[in-house]
């Protein structure tokens, strides 16, 4: 059931918002507005700028450019507290609650009603009860419950009550349904409708399209830090939105796909792979020289698959065969020793040791494989040649890797796996956070790796990259493989498999 856009008064207007970090623009010229009583969704893939925009609105960041007007008055926030007191509250995905304190204590944190130096618990509990009554009519939450004893959905309700306690006019919800069961999602939507009736404006950030259609009146799509469009939900449909989120200019070039002759033996085969609660009945093969793309919407299990293959979150049942031989991969250490390499989604947090030099990061996995009391590596490695083979741009190999650009950092991570002579490479979002110019470099490297006989599994949320680079595509949905597509497939086919919905627009 879609909600019509309301005609309520304009609560908020953000114009021309821009923000950069360390010289890298994260938001450029973004406009956003919100009316009283409406739910306005914000869509975009990871890295599109959604959370930065919301952090600016909630006062955690100051914008480099642009203005914010709230109820007709221009505002500047120096601290999240300013935004809160003005009437804008945000509920983060990780919640900002203290688990060891009660509901009442959390809601009134820093503003405890007091009589002298003593906290007036009775008043605090009473006020909390009144707030809870508005969002939890069935009364399952009591003011003196400890937050850690509440379910996730109940904790979220507490956050909403907290926002109400500030007399907020605007509530920002960041991926609110991520940890909820379908039943709890319905309860959340009911709460949202309640808030709408009170005249609050809700900003709803999500990547779950179906929910957006159910609860939002308007939706704004962000991509690469820019606003793509703002449309009324009633006047659009899913595939159009997906296209807006991940489509790229047609000028992008990709290296040619592998021909049949260039494909070699099956290097990796998975059968019947299951990870309880995450993956179901996974089975596929990858050959030498092949780039297998893994597509699907966020939360469909793409990263889960990568992590299962590398032993981070291993399969509970099923088999993995490398080079025809069955293997057990139950830890990253085992995967590395079997010549598998994994370039993670978040290279700064998981792929690099930022305080170490480029040289030491390149040799990280080799050192792990080397004998402890030996200064030699299992096989000799020339870091100079490695750097040359990935076309690394840096002033010195002894430079700390934190000072190098994103694209070059990714090359360092790749070198790490080239050094160990990996045969199977898993790339999770290979070009995320890398500027356009450098992306092509990474793509070329991937193709030439494949040509040299490696098998590559590439998880990507960027449709053009997925379609342009993959020799075959597996599309995931809800933890299983929804289907397989050949190279040259159309975007619509991918999206159909990913969402399970046909587009009304395609013939």
């Amino acid at each position: 059931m879609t909600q019509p856009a309301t005609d309520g008064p304009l609560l908020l207007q953000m114009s021309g918002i821009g923000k950069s970090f360390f010289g890298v623009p994260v938001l450029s010229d973004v406009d956003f507005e919100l009316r009283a009583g409406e739910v306005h969704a914000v869509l975009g893939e990871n890295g599109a700028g959604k959370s930065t925009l919301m952090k600016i609105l909630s006062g955690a960041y100051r914008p480099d450019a642009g203005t914010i007007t709230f109820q007709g008055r221009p505002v500047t926030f120096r601290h999240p507290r300013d935004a809160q007191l003005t009437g804008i509250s945000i509920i983060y995905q990780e919640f900002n609650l203290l688990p060891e304190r009660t509901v009442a204590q959390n809601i009134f944190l820093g503003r405890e009603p007091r009589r002298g130096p003593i906290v007036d618990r009775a008043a605090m509990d009473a006020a909390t009860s009144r707030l809870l009554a508005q969002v939890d009519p069935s009364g399952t939450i009591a003011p003196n419950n400890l937050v850690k004893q509440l379910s996730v959905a109940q904790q979220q309700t507490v956050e909403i009550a907290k926002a109400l306690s500030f007399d907020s006019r605007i509530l920002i919800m960041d991926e609110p349904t991520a940890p909820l069961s379908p039943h709890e999602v319905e309860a959340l939507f009911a709460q949202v409708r309640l808030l709408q009736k009170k005249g609050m404006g809700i900003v709803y950030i999500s990547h779950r399209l179906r929910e957006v259609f159910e609860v939002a009146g308007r939706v704004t799509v962000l991509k690469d830090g820019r606003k793509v469009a703002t449309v009324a939900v009633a006047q659009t449909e899913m595939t159009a939105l997906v296209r807006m989120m991940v489509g790229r200019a047609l000028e992008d070039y990709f290296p040619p796909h592998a021909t049949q002759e260039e494909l070699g033996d099956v290097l990796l085969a998975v059968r019947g792979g299951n990870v309880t609660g995450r993956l179901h009945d996974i089975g596929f093969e990858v050959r030498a020289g092949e780039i297998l793309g893994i597509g699907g919407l966020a939360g469909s299990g793409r990263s889960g698959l990568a992590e299962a293959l590398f032993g981070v979150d291993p399969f509970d049942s099923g088999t993995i065969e490398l080079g025809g031989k069955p293997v057990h991969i139950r830890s990253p250490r085992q995967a590395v020793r079997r010549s598998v390499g994994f370039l993670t989604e978040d290279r700064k947090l998981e792929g690099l040791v930022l305080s170490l030099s480029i040289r030491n990061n390149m040799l990280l996995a080799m050192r792990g494989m080397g004998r402890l009391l030996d200064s030699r590596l299992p096989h000799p490695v020339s870091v100079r040649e490695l750097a040359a083979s990935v076309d690394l741009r840096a002033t010195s190999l002894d430079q700390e890797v934190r000072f190098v650009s994103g694209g070059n950092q990714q090359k360092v991570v790749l070198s790490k796996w080239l050094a160990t002579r990996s045969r199977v490479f898993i790339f999770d979002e290979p070009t995320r956070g890398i500027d356009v110019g450098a992306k092509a470099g990474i793509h070329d490297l991937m193709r030439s790796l494949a040509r040299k006989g490696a098998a590559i599994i590439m998880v990507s949320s960027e449709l053009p990259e997925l379609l342009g680079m993959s020799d075959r595509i597996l599309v995931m949905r809800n933890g299983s493989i929804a289907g397989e597509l050949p190279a040259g497939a159309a975007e619509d086919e991918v999206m159909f498999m990913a969402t399970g919905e046909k587009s009304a627009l395609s013939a």
Partner: protein
Amino acid sequence: MIALILTQARTKLGHFGHRVLTAASTPIFIVLGVIYLLASVVISVANQGTLLSLDALDTIMSRSVGLGIVAMGQTVALVVGSIDLSVAYLISVGAVYSSAIMQNDPNRMVIGVLAVLAIGALVGLANGLVITKLRVNAFVATLGMSFILSGVLNASFQNYSGAVPDQFQTLAYGYIGPVRVPFILLAAVVLGVWILLRYTTLGHHLYAVGGNEEAARLSGIRSHRVIITAHVICSITAVLTGLYLAARIKAGAPWIGPDSHYDLESIAAVVVGGTALSGGRGGVWGTVAGVMILFVLDTSFNSLQVNEFLQNVARGLIIIGAVAAYTYREHRRRR
């Protein structure tokens, strides 16, 4: 006596924060009870004396007072997510400077007490500032402070110096009605800290900063002030213990604090009682139980003439075991 406290505590528990203590401290009371009973049985079998005699109880309580007072301060420090390793030498400061200033003169009692409290507050302030403004981690900062104090104390006083007047010794040996003064002192400190932690705004903020400093600051709480205040409170309880010890043995010497391992024992008592090293939870009653467990064990060992090896092993194992158990529970929950 102990039964009295236990029932008193339990009634209070029953009314408020019942769930708080269900999670953290109540198991400790059960452990305490079990250990106590086991120990008394073993001792009355092995010895003539029994732990349950009033005399024995009296002894335990007197020795617990010193540790109990400083453990209350340490509780405050741990709740806010910090720690104070300088308490041992602060206790010595309290003992030494009070006897040195009082010089056996009853007219100088008040001056002595005030001066010592002032020094304690200053040291606590210094600890807090080094931690918050210089951004030195609490372990290193208070450890460094303990070295600083140690040097100054040992350089200035080689032995017992001065004396506290006889009147002052009522702090250790006097009675108010049927109850010994030290017990009243301990009860006052325990109640004071309990009220602080449970009922005051500062108490709420201590838990908040300890639980998640960032979240607390986002809510407008001045976390630095809260941490500094916690350290001042902790230091004051330490010098209070020093004053008490000086009252007990008539004079103070620099080794009083460190010799009885008050720093580690106070942390052990707090941690065993359920207050997490990471901060944000736990409280006074758990620490009370922790103190009592440690001393029941001590007394049992002494009565049974268990040698120091086993005593220290037991202490070490208990600390590790308690922390491991609590950490393990947290890990289970996270998964």
